[in-house]
């Protein structure tokens, strides 16, 4: 049995289902992210694990013990909030030691543990400061240390980085991941930032409208989305409608442009219409590649996105984006140029019938 299990969990607020048919097994020491758009039920699910909401159906267990209806202060679950939620009247060390004092651990043990935690988050210089004297990133680290000091069975983080600016967000997320790995703690991390989820998770749970769309490693989620929603939500995506020309060969027609896919077109007939998807980074300017799609296109616009250049293409009658790395020797076409781009057969994903 997995370490943390959620079985058939549902949560209803009045008439509306915030979470439905939620099944998830998390192994000990695993780092799992909940990813999905606003209002899809990520926070609600997390709060049910924490005990702040009770499920209207289903069961939650940690280490084999049923905790579904236990009070939050009876579970040993650590929580990190988006708004830090440090106690303003307590210093950094008092905040971190709060949970240990509640357990009435001896002062010497508390002191030792607090210092250990402080070292973990590299705030040795700030141990006697008060929350209002710390930056947002420092406050969130204290909040993390406070949650970890109690040695929780599961660590829950609800968009802990959303209130921070971009640079700190990136550095703190790797810090969180490193600490989680060092301690071997089981963690659930809620985010609506796909890059965040992809970069630090062992597995990602993509959610939509209260349901799980797909559970998988970042690699699986990004490269093999199982539903149109996942394909669209994770990474950017070009989608178009195409007609099947030859199901055996994987041949497709899109406004007179010929494309091939490596995917099996099981159960589909010639003439059927399907939704296809191609990630922008899978395109490149045509060279001598064999066994690849080569298509004519017109360059409509070019935008710089930092490390990446996005080229807006018109292929047939459909607009596509193409992303290419931005290096100084890059030879870009001009707006209005007619050129050829290429993508592999595997880059053409079939999302389902149109």
């Amino acid at each position, binding site marked *: 049995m997995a370490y943390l299990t959620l079985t058939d969990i549902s949560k209803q607020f009045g008439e509306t289902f915030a979470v439905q048919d939620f099944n998830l097994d998390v192994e000990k020491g695993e780092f799992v992210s909940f990813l999905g758009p606003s209002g899809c039920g990520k926070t609600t699910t997390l709060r049910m694990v*924490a*005990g*702040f909401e009770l499920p209207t159906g289903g069961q939650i267990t940690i280490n084999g013990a049923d905790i579904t209806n236990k*009070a*939050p*202060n009876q*579970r*040993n*679950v*650590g*929580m990190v*909030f988006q*708004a830090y*939620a*440090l*106690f*303003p*009247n*307590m*210093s950094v060390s008092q905040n971190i030691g*709060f*949970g240990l004092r*509640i*357990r009435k651990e001896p002062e010497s043990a508390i002191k030792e543990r607090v210092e250990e935690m402080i070292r973990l988050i590299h705030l040795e210089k700030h141990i*006697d400061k*008060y*929350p*209002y004297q710390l930056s947002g990133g420092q406050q969130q680290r204290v*909040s993390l240390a*406070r*949650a970890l000091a*109690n040695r929780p069975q599961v660590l829950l983080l609800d968009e802990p980085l959303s209130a921070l600016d971009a640079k700190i967000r990136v550095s703190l997320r790797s810090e969180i991941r490193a600490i989680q790995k060092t301690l071997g703690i089981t963690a659930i991390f809620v985010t609506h930032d796909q890059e965040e989820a992809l970069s630090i998770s062992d597995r990602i749970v993509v959610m939509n409208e209260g349901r799980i769309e797909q559970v998988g490693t970042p690699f699986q989620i990004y490269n093999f989305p199982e539903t149109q929603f996942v394909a669209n939500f994770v990474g950017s995506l070009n989608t178009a409608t195409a007609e099947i020309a030859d199901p055996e060969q994987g041949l497709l027609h899109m406004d007179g442009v010929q494309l091939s896919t490596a995917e099996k077109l099981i159960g589909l007939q010639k003439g059927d219409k399907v939704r296809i998807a191609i990630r922008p980074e899978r395109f490149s300017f045509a060279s001598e590649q064999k066994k690849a799609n080569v298509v004519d296109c017109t360059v409509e616009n070019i935008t710089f996105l930092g490390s990446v250049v996005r080229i807006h293409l018109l292929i047939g009658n459909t607009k596509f984006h193409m992303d290419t790395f931005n290096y100084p020797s890059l030879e870009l076409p001009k707006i209005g140029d007619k050129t050829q781009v290429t993508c592999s057969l595997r880059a053409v994903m079939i999302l389902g019938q149109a």
Partner: protein
Amino acid sequence: MKKNLIWSWFWIILSLLYFFVPLILTFVFSLQTLKDQFSFISYQRVFEDRGFIRSLIFSTEIGIVTIFLSLALMIPTVYWVRLKAPRIRPVIEFISLLPFVIPAIVLVFGLIRVFSGGLLPLTNTHLGTNFLLVAAYVVIGFPYLYRSIDAGMGAIDVVTLTEAAQSLGANWFTIMFRVIIPNLRAAIFSATFLTLAIVMGEFTVATFLVGLKSFGPYLWQVNQNRAYEGSALVIVSFLITWAFMGLIVLVGRGAGASDAAGPR
């Protein structure tokens, strides 16, 4: 910019004059008991009158009981509403305004009517009457107290702090006394001060329930009968009020220093 500054100063000075001129004149008048010479005789008489100290102590006691009762009622209520029933906040806010609408005279007659006989004849005993007085002051102080406590809770994220404490294993008692109340320090001090000021000066309810035993009616009576001493008493009560204020600020700082400066 400069023009604005001049006008700011104009208004500041005008309001200071408005506040201090009557006070200074009262003070000067209180020194003139003897003809052709300034003296503190009226002050001496004020302090010699046993009614002064007695009523002062009585009202202070009533004030302190009122404060404790009000805080004990108000803090958990406001907390609970913010935590569990934020939708009924407007209702509570409306109720908190009622004491402004109901005149004190109506309140006190209502109280006497209900509690002078029947099931709870509170007005028959001193203790009962004092309790009624406290109850009335709890009602009268409700709007001020509610507002400052509610504002205090608004300044911290009560819900998230509660959840954070819960997830660390805290029970309700711990959350209340270790997390919520310490963060309401400023609000509690201002509520305390306001309540005390109200109780010390209140006249209508005190007159009908306990009469000259309490400070408000006593002050009024002295003013009626003895002009110079009345003025002296006004100055003294001002000083007392300010001393209270200073004390509260001091205590507030002290509490702040012991677990270090609170959030600002």
